[in-house]
């Protein structure tokens, strides 16, 4: 198989399969959760659920001071990683083109050198998180294979993208193919691992906020 065959494969059928599994899996799990519903709260409501829930979704983007003081390293690295990853994903122009072709929506991108710097920082943060997990005794005790594995997969998507962009591996079709392959791996495992938190975190926050709101306390 030549590098071009490989690229055609990952840009063609493999991508279709991965995307189908991803969408299928995400919807499957979201519907399961939503339909299962929460236990009915029989207590008398002291406040609204909806507004409080919605507010909490946004309020919790803000770093928690206590957590920041207690374990600053993973908190800060975590924020850097999440922010960086989304900048690379959503503001690199070739990615915007992909989203535009699939969903028909588009927005302005960032100059490549900015995305480039962000990608490096993000990869640095991921390495930091990996090392922290390995060296912190408590976290290490709590970590499963999945925790390490996912860090590696996410790192691979960034690293292969960086490699492809800079033509570090030649020929380019091979480099681009590897990037797509790693993304496809991410898409396939996404719904069935804790990566699902990308979506469920908002459900969770809403439920938390809504419950607190009903009780008339702040979440």
């Amino acid at each position, binding site marked *: 198989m*030549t*590098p*071009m*065959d490989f*690229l*055609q494969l990952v*840009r*063609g*059928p493999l*991508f*279709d*399969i991965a*995307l*189908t*599994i*991803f*969408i*299928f*899996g*995400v*919807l*499957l*799990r*979201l*519907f*399961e*959760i*939503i*339909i*299962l*519903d929460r236990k009915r709260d029989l207590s008398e409501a002291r406040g609204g659920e909806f507004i409080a829930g919605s507010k909490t979704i946004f309020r919790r983007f803000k770093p928690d001071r206590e957590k920041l003081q207690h374990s600053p390293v993973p908190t800060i690295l975590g924020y850097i990683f999440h922010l960086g990853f989304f900048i690379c994903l959503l503001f690199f*122009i*070739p*990615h915007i*083109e*992909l989203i535009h*072709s*699939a969903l028909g929506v588009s927005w302005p*991108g*960032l*100059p*490549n*050198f900015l995305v480039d710097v962000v990608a490096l920082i993000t990869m640095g943060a991921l390495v930091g998180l990996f090392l922290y997990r390995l060296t912190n005794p408590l976290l290490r005790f709590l970590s499963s294979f999945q925790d390490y594995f996912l860090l590696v997969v996410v790192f691979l998507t960034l690293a292969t993208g960086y490699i492809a962009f800079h*033509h570090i591996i*030649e*020929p*380019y*079709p091979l480099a*681009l193919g590897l990037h797509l392959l790693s993304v496809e791996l991410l898409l396939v495992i996404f719904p069935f691992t804790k990566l699902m938190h990308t979506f469920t975190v908002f459900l969770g926050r809403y439920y938390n906020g809504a419950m607190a709101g009903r009780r008339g306390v702040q979440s």
Partner: protein
Amino acid sequence: MSAHITLGEALRRRGVSRRGFLKFCTATASMMALPPTMVGAVAEALESAPRPSVIWLSFQECTGCTESLTRSHAPTVEGLIFDHISLDYHHTLQAASGDAAEEAREEAMHAHWGNYLLVVDGSIPLANPGYSTIAGMSNLDMLKESAEGAAAIIAVGSCAAFGGLPKAKPNPTGAVSVADIIKDKPIINVPGCPPVPSVMTGVLAHYLTFGTIPELDVYGRPKVFFGQNIHDRCYRRTFYDRGLFAKTFDDEGARKGWCLYRLGCKGPTTYNACATMKWNQGASWPIEAGHGCLGCSEPDFWDAGGFYRALSIPINDPAAAIGIGVVAGAAIGIASGAMAHRKKVEATHHREPLKVEQLEGKA
């Protein structure tokens, strides 16, 4: 021109001075994409270059490659090279036809058995030999026969090198490349649809000059011409890096000469000499003319997604994948969620509350 005199001798007989010869070598070295320091070596080699016999076969092709070649931009220099090679057989260019043409081919083959250079353009149909025949002979048979006595083969154009347009899905003729059939001869692939003229002559000049096969990449392409990535050598690259793109062919970005990535430019996956050698006597090249690169020197470029779709967009329309995913995911999700929900409701109904006595083991 006698078959035995060298190129240096032939030029002197034509009254070309030493300066003229050195100039010829400079132009040839430049055409071969060699560094200027190599001019001396080229001069030395050309001085004693023997006169090779060339047989040119055309199979499933559009003659675009020959058209391109005969319009190459340096008639004197390339003319001297072509004068010097003995083009014994070329379907399209030769005056002879029918049996006389086929005889010429056989004669040249026998006279230079083991030493002639075979040039092929066009792909070879395997589904049914009748799709393309010459003098009643299938392309496959003619290629095999002619390849046997060849010193080396140059597959000119994307069809001969990779199958090209005839091989595009669904490939009705079962087209394949030269390298798919011939396994025991050195093959130089010179893809492009058509190839840059000076690349074709450059490869011929290299063989003529040094009598060797140039260094090749994974696709059998000479690295001197196909080692450079279009995107890396593109003068619009600064715009790519700054995130400035033309979004249509007539917007502000297009007028200002910004990057054509969003208009489907395949420069990043393409390796060819267009950015430096250019076309039409060095006048311009596709990207300079405002159109994205089609990637014509890469295998299966016809099937690499639309010409006007950005490279990052998958080849197939994602609508099908999204549709299946949404419908199946939602349906099964709802079903499974509903089942779990019912179970929960049932469990609540049949719930037997635990009493303190039970816990204390008194019940």
